[in-house]
């Protein structure tokens, strides 16, 4: 989806957005966290959460063996548990992941654009993106230029996202705002809209590589942004919190928030994802607990 706005138009629209009251936003997130999800709805939520995971490995030590192990887990996490949505890897691992996941329906997502800092020239970021797409990535997770954003050059951020969108071709584009570096809620709201105006298919909180990653208030704020963006333009954009969501309890809080802020339309892995690695095993252990009535332990789920 190409943008019909110029950079200057998008920047001025974004600067005119209403402010965010931090205390109120955090209070709302805390309120949503008190929902009690039990029995059948918990079982449903666990399977839904598993199906929304972008099972991720983004280490310097990643090898084809590690990626194949992760791909196997993604396709068949545990017994009759659903497959995850995607496997998320560095561009150099895309071909391996693609081959391992062939025909399974599990997608390959690749980080790109000089992940995680993005502090390389634009042509290098675009080349990074193109190579990931050529290797077979179904989805591209790009990082925005936080330096330009914080320096106030919103137009530049907008044009760069547009350029990466063009380089992504048919791959769906997830735009990582790195909310921990944007620091304020006002900036997160502005960056969310800027990314959507520039053609993002998903907005994503974090790389998982900085001190503060996904939080519920930040994700709630981004959900309000995609809700309002659809109301304004008719275009639906997905949301992906990433980093720091490690257990079932937290995952369910996010699903409750999707349910009450966005509703049914976003309650599928086409529109909502968790960027996570250790979350999957906790979901599987909770799933076993619901089925068998007793807790197992970390040796009853696989280490991949």
């Amino acid at each position, binding site marked *: 989806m190409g943008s019909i706005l110029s950079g200057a138009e998008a920047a001025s629209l974004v600067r005119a957005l*209403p*402010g*965010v*009251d931090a*205390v*109120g*936003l955090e*209070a*709302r997130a805390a309120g949503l966290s*008190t*929902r*009690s*999800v*039990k*029995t*059948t*709805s*918990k079982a*449903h*939520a666990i399977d*839904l959460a598993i199906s929304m995971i972008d099972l991720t490995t983004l280490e310097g030590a990643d090898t084809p063996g590690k990626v194949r192990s992760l791909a196997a887990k993604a396709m068949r996490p545990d017994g009759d548990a659903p497959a995850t949505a995607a496997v998320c890897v560095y561009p150099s691992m895309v071909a391996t992941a693609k081959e391992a996941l062939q025909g399974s329906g599990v997608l390959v997502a690749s980080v790109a654009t000089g992940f995680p800092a993005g502090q390389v020239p634009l042509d290098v970021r675009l080349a990074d993106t193109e190579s990931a797409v050529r290797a077979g990535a179904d989805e591209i997770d790009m990082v925005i230029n936080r330096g330009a954003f914080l320096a106030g050059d919103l137009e530049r951020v907008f044009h760069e996202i547009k350029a990466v969108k063009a380089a992504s071709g048919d791959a769906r584009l997830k735009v990582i705002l790195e909310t921990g570096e944007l620091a304020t809620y006002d900036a997160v709201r502005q960056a969310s809209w800027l990314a959507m105006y520039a053609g993002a298919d998903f907005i994503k909180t974090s790389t998982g590589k900085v001190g503060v990653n996904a939080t519920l208030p930040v994700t709630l704020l981004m959900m*309000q942004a995609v809700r309002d963006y659809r109301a304004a333009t008719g275009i639906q954009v997905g949301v992906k919190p990433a980093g720091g969501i490690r257990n079932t309890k937290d995952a369910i809080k996010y*699903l*409750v928030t*999707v*349910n*009450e802020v966005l509703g*049914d339309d976003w*309650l599928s892995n086409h529109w909502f994802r968790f960027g996570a690695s250790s979350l999957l095993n906790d979901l599987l252990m909770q799933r076993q607990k619901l089925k068998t009535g007793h807790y197992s332990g970390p040796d009853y789920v696989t280490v991949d």
Partner: protein
Amino acid sequence: MFEYAPAPESVRPDIKEHYGLFIDGEFVDGQDVFKSVNPATEEVLFTVAEAGEADVARAVAAARRAQETVWGPMSGTERGKYLFRIARLLQERAREFAVAESLDNGKPIKETRDFDVPTAAQHFFYHAGWADKLSYAGLGADPKPLGVVGQVIPWNFPLLMLAWKIAPALACGNTVVLKPAETTPLTALMFAELCQEADLPAGVVNILPGAGAAGAAVVNSPVDKVAFTGSTAVGRAIAKAVAGSKKKVTLELGGKAANIVFDDAPIDQAVEGIVNGIFFNQGHVCCAGSRLLVQESVADDVLARLKERVSTLRVGDPLDKNTDIGAINSAEQLARITALTEAGRGEGADVWQPACDLPENGFWFRPTVFTGVQQSMRIAQEEIFGPVLSVLTFRTPDEAIAKANNTPYGLSAGVWTEKGSKILWAAERLRAGVVWANTFNQFDAASPFGGLKESGYGREGGRQGLEAYLDV
């Protein structure tokens, strides 16, 4: 679809079949008996003795003796120890009190668990700390208690209002005779049991359930001070009754608060504040933001978001942890809300309610939003005391202030804007005891609460609240 399975609170407090009056440290029979029902099911929860004039006289005499021989002479440090003990016991039994309050009042367990009971405990902790520091309250070198205090409290926050009344009174060295509301005596009686458990000296706290007659008997008895929270009509009667006597009075009465949303407000959070302002506790809140004043330029956007948000509120079983709106407290209150809502329709306002199923038994009312409301309509002037919001618009800041102040009440107000200077400008002009900025319905034991105009006089909470219980 992501439906939440029922999540009922499993703890059940030990509710007795019958409760007596709590006089001089013991439960005794009264002149009559009445029933307390669960407003969510209309089932009888327990029976309770009703206090008559003779019972009130006995309770006041017991309180007098306790004040003169035990509680008044006791050092502040020792009084503080008792209050700390009560606060800790309330915390320890918080779950039990929360469930009991939900059963007797109809409010959701989410609120009793997260607000009513913890805030009540906080009031005891806060005032326990004052008990030996009254000389530093700025109310004189060695301020003395008033003596015996008669207190009459409402049904909307039964335990919390009890705490607001009893904690400062006891901290200052007074003893109390308290009448809980007719429909919600349970937590007050459980509190009486808790006083026994804390070994509070007999006669320091006396609890006398009953209806209006029992309240009048307390007001007319030889107490030194009357403290009342409730309707303006009853408050006026109390003021008349004590006129010409040396009894001191504090009254916390009705309200018709305006929640003012300017065009530069943080809109999503303002919508949350509007919802919290009027639908918290089914709107049974004297300081509820029952009038929304929204700037015309953003009115459509705010209303669309508000309706979407209200549609997600979950109405039903108060003991389900996911319930947002519980039962209306009584058939009488439901009738009043229904009548005023009908008046709103009749006067030409547009009514909107979300589609939601209501339980068959019990007293229920859907969250309701009236748009196209004009200042002259009854729903813009009279306190509804239910989950009903009246939406009015304004064009300029001056008009907002004029409309907000154009009511006989003056308890609270809310201001929503991202501009700090506008908050201060509005707060200076609003004639209300409490002005919240970019939030609503926030309470703290350290913060004084009370009204202007027909919303009453006197302050509760904070250093200022001590004045009502000291001879200054």
